[in-house]
């Protein structure tokens, strides 16, 4: 995405006791038979679809040796790997810079000085409302910047703004008592932020932050549209080669799993962190028992 996600937390895993069990009874023998029948039927339908696609692939000659031969050449393998390397390079730059910009903008939005707050709010709102591609094109075309810096700058502006909102929400979600206690200990504004609020907010928001990095990774493919020589660009070069009979489909078949695999790994990591956090006592501030009347003297109850 593109920048599609809105930073929603990754979906929780399915447990036997989650929502779905509330929607239907535990099936009895007849329902089980019926469900089995549905299962068989739907599987047959899906398999038939897949078979039809395979048939199309074969009948339009997508599996001819011609179309798959390019992948056996070392030069082409290097081209694909270089493209993958460029994608990862753009991702690395964009993610580090987005985190930095997000930190700066979030600090700005939480500032006590009104002009600073106002300026950061305008920045964040504007860059979140613009399509990433418009920014990338603007930087590339109007400011005449090289493809890689243009791509990284566009991704940074967008994801930095989204992350700024994430950080801000995280800081505001830290229990009020934490801030109050820190001030009560005589800490200064900066100390309260850096020693008390930011660490807790970051820990709580880590899954959301990683999910946002998945967006950045997906969006590196926009570099293809401004002639940055990334993974998809390498694929396009091979696919538009007449010598191999335009192997578009083989290229898609090889590139997609790698792209989707990379993003899935990162998404899965976000989910894993979220799961681990739910079990960890550190993310959940300890609950202090509410004050209640107690026996004044020991022995009374």
């Amino acid at each position: 995405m593109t920048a599609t996600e809105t930073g929603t937390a990754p979906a929780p895993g399915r447990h036997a006791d989650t929502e779905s069990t509330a929607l239907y009874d535990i099936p009895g023998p007849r329902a089980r038979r019926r469900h089995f029948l549905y299962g068989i039927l739907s599987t047959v339908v899906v398999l038939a679809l897949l078979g039809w696609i395979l048939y199309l692939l074969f009948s339009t000659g997508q599996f001819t040796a011609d179309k798959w031969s390019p992948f056996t050449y070392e030069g082409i393998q290097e081209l694909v790997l270089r493209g993958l390397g460029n994608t990862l390079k753009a991702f690395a730059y964009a993610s580090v810079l987005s985190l930095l910009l997000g930190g700066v903008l979030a600090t700005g939005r939480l500032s006590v000085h009104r002009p600073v707050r106002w300026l950061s709010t305008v920045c964040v709102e504007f860059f979140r409302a613009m399509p990433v591609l418009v920014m990338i094109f603007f930087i590339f075309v109007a400011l005449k910047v090289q493809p890689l810096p243009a791509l990284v700058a566009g991704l940074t502006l967008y994801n930095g703004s989204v992350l700024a909102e994430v950080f801000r929400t995280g800081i505001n979600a830290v229990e009020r008592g934490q801030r109050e206690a820190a001030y009560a200990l005589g800490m200064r504004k900066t100390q309260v932020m850096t020693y008390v609020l930011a660490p807790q907010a970051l820990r709580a928001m880590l899954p959301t932050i990683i999910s946002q990095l998945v967006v950045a990774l997906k969006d590196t493919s926009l570099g293809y549209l401004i002639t940055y020589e990334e993974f998809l660009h390498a694929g396009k070069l091979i696919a538009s080669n007449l010598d191999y009979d335009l192997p578009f489909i083989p290229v898609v078949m090889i590139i997609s799993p790698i792209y989707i695999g990379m993003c899935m790994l990162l998404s899965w990591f976000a989910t894993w962190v979220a799961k681990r956090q739910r079990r960890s006592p550190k993310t959940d501030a300890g609950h202090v028992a509410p004050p209640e009347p107690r026996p004044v003297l020991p022995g009374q109850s």
Partner: protein
Amino acid sequence: MDVLTDNFALYGKGFLGTVELTVYSSLLALVLGFLMASFRVAPVGSFRVFGTVWVTVLRNTPLTLLFFAVLLGLPRFGLVLPFEVFAVIALGCYTSAFICEALRSGINTVPKGQGEAARSLGMSFGQTLGDVVLPQAFRSVIPPIGSTLIALAKNTAIAGAFSVNELLGTYKTLSELGYSIIWTFFWIAVGYLIITLSISALFNVLEKRWGIAR
């Protein structure tokens, strides 16, 4: 300023192209997302698997790659459709995964007792989901669906780079005509702002009418 006044028709055409793409893709995404959400909570295992695979794959696919595969790959099967239709298919399928997840988290916000009560009245799965749970889930998913559709509107820009008529694509024509690039982009940005702000205003109204009072 004269960029806009001289080329109002061109801008208008691009703007309408973006609006059309957004509307059609939204409809497709909502229908597919609703279907996949039903699949993902269904009692039949294979439906659940299908819904999960659909959502997982599409959520982790870069949209540019999807456009590449659909617009340049499908014609190789002899499936030649206008680029606008391809763009709507790609955008609609992609966004449906996010709509599905929004709906599913909405289903989770409905108190369990509602589903249990429906079942104890003897309702079937379809009735429980369609008449009791989803109508209540809808109320809490208005904001996330709104932001998903705003994201969709922004993603239509990618279609422009694949030479579908829309707002971003107008910059090429205008820069060839020799207009100032900065102003060209300024008006493109205004166009996108109008669209995204309209969607968020619309969803604010919906939220006021049907949302859960908090």
